[in-house]
């Protein structure tokens, strides 16, 4: 970036500034403010009114819409059963290989290890060294 570039930019901004200054509203008008605004057009409220009307109509339709007939008891029970027996198709993804090992706990009724007291009891006194 050179000084020439900066000067060129400054000149461009100066032209823009001069033009803006020439078209600037007088201070007195800006201070009055509201009078400078164009009068509100009634058409401005048409979209708002249309949205409100559409919302009200939708609400009325939803309230007055006839609901379907109530299901019989048998139908309700069948529906409940189908819901309770439902399983997700992805359930099988949750089963891991090797899960059956922790689920089958080995029996502790007989031990293959011979404890020292049991060994003494089984050995006759005379044979002890």
């Amino acid at each position: 970036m050179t000084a020439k570039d900066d000067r060129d930019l400054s000149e461009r901004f100066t032209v823009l500034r001069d033009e803006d200054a020439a078209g600037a509203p007088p201070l007195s008008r800006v201070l009055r403010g509201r009078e400078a605004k164009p009068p509100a057009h009634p058409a401005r409220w048409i979209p708002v009114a249309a949205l409100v009307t559409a919302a009200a109509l939708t609400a009325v339709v939803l309230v007055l819409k006839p609901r379907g007939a109530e299901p019989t008891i048998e139908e309700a029970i069948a529906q409940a059963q189908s819901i309770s027996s439902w399983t997700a198709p992805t359930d099988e993804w949750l089963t891991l290989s090797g899960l059956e090992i922790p689920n089958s706990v080995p029996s502790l009724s007989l031990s293959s290890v011979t404890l020292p007291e049991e060994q003494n009891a089984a050995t006759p006194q005379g044979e002890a060294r």
Partner: protein
Amino acid sequence: MTTMEAALAEIHAEAFGWALACCHRDRFLAEEVLHVAYVKVLAGSARFDQRSSFKTFLFGVIRKTAMEQRRASWLSARRLAQWFTVRPVPEPSADPEAVSLRSERAGALTAALTHLSVRQREVMHLVFYQDLTIEEAAQVLGITTGSARQHYERGKARLRELLPNEAHR
């Protein structure tokens, strides 16, 4: 005319230029923003504590007011009406008087500025249009000087890409 009104009158044209920059060059909105900003200053809701220059203070108020106006108008009836009515973009070039005044160079600059980020555009405007230093521009925007300097350098480089360099011809 009070002292504050005299101070406003002194930099009114520059303040309008800054309001235009903050309102995407929408003249009607810029005038509205300027009015609200002036009322804030005159009523004392925006108080000048003399920590910076009056110009820097006023520009900060104008920028904040423009942001508030944009937020407030987001769901206003005026905004909704825009969806249903086709109206010309409020660009000054649509005004015949402005068209006759606008030079080709300024028009090219205005178009190029739309390709910059908001921050870059603001910094470029404050430095080149308003002749503020980068430090003062940072104060107006509420950012650090380093950040403002970065936006300034990048904005300048981008403008150089977008604008034909008449200085080198």
